[in-house]
């Protein structure tokens, strides 16, 4: 499109110079097209700003994030490991009707993943009935044999789920991937809103944006609801790997918002099949752990014996039913990218329903036919390792070099079950501020976005209205992960 070539006059509103990408679904233009009375204030207030006002907005937002210390850590970067998650002040808007559909679809999805986990670590009916091949699960690196004897309270394996959604060129939402291990990002959602509320208070009021403030209360409520034996005032603690973890800010933020203790493995101890934390006045029993530590590091007696982050004996405490953990051990099998391909079948199998939100067409490369199809046109597919998350190891065919494609081909042939392939989804785009910090005037350009809503499962499901809109700040880039140079926007779900 050559957006940079457009001359931006100082007096011209940023919106006037905006050109949507060809063949891409532009969410703001779509909303304007279907314009109801309440999306127009956004166009008027934000998009009709002169470039200098937009630059000012960006600068104020950045100063606020820096002052609030809203940062994430980047692994393997030497220069001061704390970074600000880049923020774009143009909000992404979702109308009430679309959200109602998404909410139902998200609840359906998290419930089915939960049902699947209960089945995998329970009777295994779905294998016996031939809906999901048993060897796919047993061979999955995220399958945890140790989880088989643990019966989580309420049967809840998943307490917090983050479901990544994308919109293709037709504007339809699809599930891109599920995150039911330790999904992160919700602190940015809440802090983005705090900043936007200060930047454009009138606009948020005029648009009647749904509040997201309840999330920490809802999370705590769900955690209390899964306390063993239905204890009425359980002691909840958030288990963090510590200040060097990339999501440490979020761990601190959530424990603060919920008013629960933030603990590291070394603060906890197991005795007589009960879990305790070491307080200044001795040991105090812990009933529910919201853990942000991966399975592998949770309990050196069961998983990796070199882990310093976990608590020796934790798995035994859980098995004895004297504590609950969220999410449960072994949930990783449900967000495996090969298992993902079976989720529509699971929804039909467990609930007799059709999926409300479709998935992206997925080729399991362990199948010979699928593999041949994909390897023939590798440059047309996205290849993903089945077990990884956070965008690590993803190869995007059309953007990959000959050498990368060749390496990927070799890796697939060496271990086909470790990969899936999907056609490239041309993610929807959204007006985004470009050049916010440069000397030249900033302008708006379309950038690819996705959405990670957060679903809570306690005695009943609760969904945060909206979620984390991530934006690929580099022109043309499809990778929105924070670890790979993505940024975020505030997500506005409008009141019905």
């Amino acid at each position: 499109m050559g957006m940079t070539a457009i001359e931006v006059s100082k007096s011209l509103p940023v919106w006037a110079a905006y050109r949507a990408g060809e063949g891409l679904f532009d969410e703001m233009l779509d909303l304007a097209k279907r314009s109801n009375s309440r999306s127009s204030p956004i166009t008027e207030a934000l998009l009709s700003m002169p470039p200098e006002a937009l630059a000012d907005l960006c600068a104020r937002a950045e100063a606020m994030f820096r002052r609030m210390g809203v940062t994430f850590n980047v692994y393997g970067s030497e220069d001061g490991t704390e970074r600000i998650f880049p923020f774009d002040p143009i909000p992404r808007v979702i109308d009430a009707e679309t959200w109602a559909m998404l909410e139902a679809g998200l609840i359906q999805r998290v419930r089915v993943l939960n049902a699947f986990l209960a089945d995998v670590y329970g009777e295994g009916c779905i294998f016996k009935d031939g809906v999901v091949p048993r060897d796919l699960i047993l061979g999955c690196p995220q399958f945890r044999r140790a989880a088989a004897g643990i019966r989580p309270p309420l049967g809840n394996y998943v307490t917090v789920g983050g479901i990544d959604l994308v919109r293709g060129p037709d504007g339809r939402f699809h599930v891109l991937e599920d995150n039911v291990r330790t999904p992160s990002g919700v602190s940015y959602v809440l802090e983005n809103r705090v900043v936007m509320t200060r930047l454009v208070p009138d606009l948020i009021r005029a648009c009647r944006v749904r509040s997201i403030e309840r999330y920490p209360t809802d999370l705590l409520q769900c955690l209390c609801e899964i306390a063993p034996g239905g204890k009425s005032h359980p002691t909840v603690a958030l288990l963090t790997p510590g200040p060097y973890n990339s999501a440490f800010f979020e761990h601190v933020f959530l424990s603060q918002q919920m008013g629960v203790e933030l603990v590291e493995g070394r603060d906890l101890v197991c005795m007589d099949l009960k879990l305790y934390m070491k307080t200044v006045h001795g040991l105090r029993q812990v009933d529910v752990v919201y853990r942000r530590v991966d399975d592998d590091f949770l309990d050196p007696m069961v998983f990796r014996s070199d882990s310093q982050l976990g608590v020796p004996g934790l798995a035994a405490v859980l098995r004895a039913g004297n504590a609950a953990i969220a999410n449960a051990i072994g949930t990783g099998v449900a967000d495996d990218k090969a298992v993902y391909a079976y989720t529509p079948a699971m929804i039909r199998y467990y609930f007799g329903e059709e999926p409300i939100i479709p998935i992206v067409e997925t080729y399991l490369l362990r199948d010979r036919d699928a593999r041949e199809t994909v390897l023939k046109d590798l440059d047309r597919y996205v290849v993903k390792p089945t077990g990884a998350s956070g965008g690590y190891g993803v190869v995007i065919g059309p953007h990959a070099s000959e050498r990368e494609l060749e390496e990927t081909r070799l890796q697939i042939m060496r271990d086909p079950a470790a990969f899936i392939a999907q056609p490239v989804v041309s993610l929807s785009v959204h007006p985004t501020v470009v050049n916010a910090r440069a000397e030249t005037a900033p302008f708006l350009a379309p950038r690819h976005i996705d959405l990670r809503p957060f679903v809570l499962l306690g005695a009943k499901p609760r969904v945060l209205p909206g979620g984390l809109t991530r934006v690929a700040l580099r022109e043309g880039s499809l990778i929105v992960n924070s670890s790979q140079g993505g940024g975020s926007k505030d997500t506005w779900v409008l009141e019905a």
Partner: protein
Amino acid sequence: MLKRIADHLFWTARNLERAEWRARLVEVNYQLLIETPPRDLQPWEPLLAIFGEREEFSERYASADEASVLNYFTLDADNPNSIRNCINVARSNARALRNQLSSELWLGLNTLYLAAQEWTPEVFKWPGVFAYFAELKDSFYQLAGIRRGTMPRDLAYDFMELGSMLERAEDVARMLDVKYHFLLPRLEDVGGAIDLLQWAAVLRSASGLEAYRKRYGGAIRVDNVVDILLFDPTFPRSAVYSVGRLRAFIDRIAADSPEASAAAAAAGKLLAEINASKPAEIIHDGLHQFLLHVQDSCAEISELVFEEYLKAA
């Protein structure tokens, strides 16, 4: 309250108090040198000696000139107790316990931390040494005010106050020592104009000059200065006030413990010793010895607090 968290709270507050007193001490020395032209070739040496950091300093600096000493005490990344490092340590401790601090306190601390990262030796030229320290003291007052205005009076608050008061008792003793032991002018100057100017500077840097005037009137006398800085229970930076608060906070913390607290006993002993002393007596018997005893007792209390409440193992 987790032991690890209590430890972080204690050190956050203690490092802030330490940074504040370092600022006060450097400022008072600077002021003394302006008001009384140095006879000494190394007028900044006493300050280094007070902190027992002469050797560490000389490892990295050729001479104890003003620029080097200012840099060492404020900006030096290799000096663990430089003001900037104290702020950095306080902030990194606080980062691990943001769930225990009010968000206002975190914001204030993070703002100071971000400002401290921008400091260069240029700040001593512009806005100049006085302005720099004045601004810094304002930041510390602000943080103390936010803490008292926003934190619930629970264990988190108690451990922070404990850290602050322990450091304060130790540092006020140290500051008095700077003047009395090391800046003692020649015998013929005692009670002279220069001597009085120096005592006024000491009071001012403890924010005590006005309190002094209110209580004793205009004339500055050594025994009265010692009285207000060590024995005045109404003056918030005196040794007796700090140790009294310190003991109250240990008592509150210990109240929920089944066993008797050795730290509380040690704090009670120090408080009794201070209460039993009189300015004239300790000046006669050796003020330096008394001040050293206060500092050593604080170190002992700190060690007992660590053993009883903070050590995680």
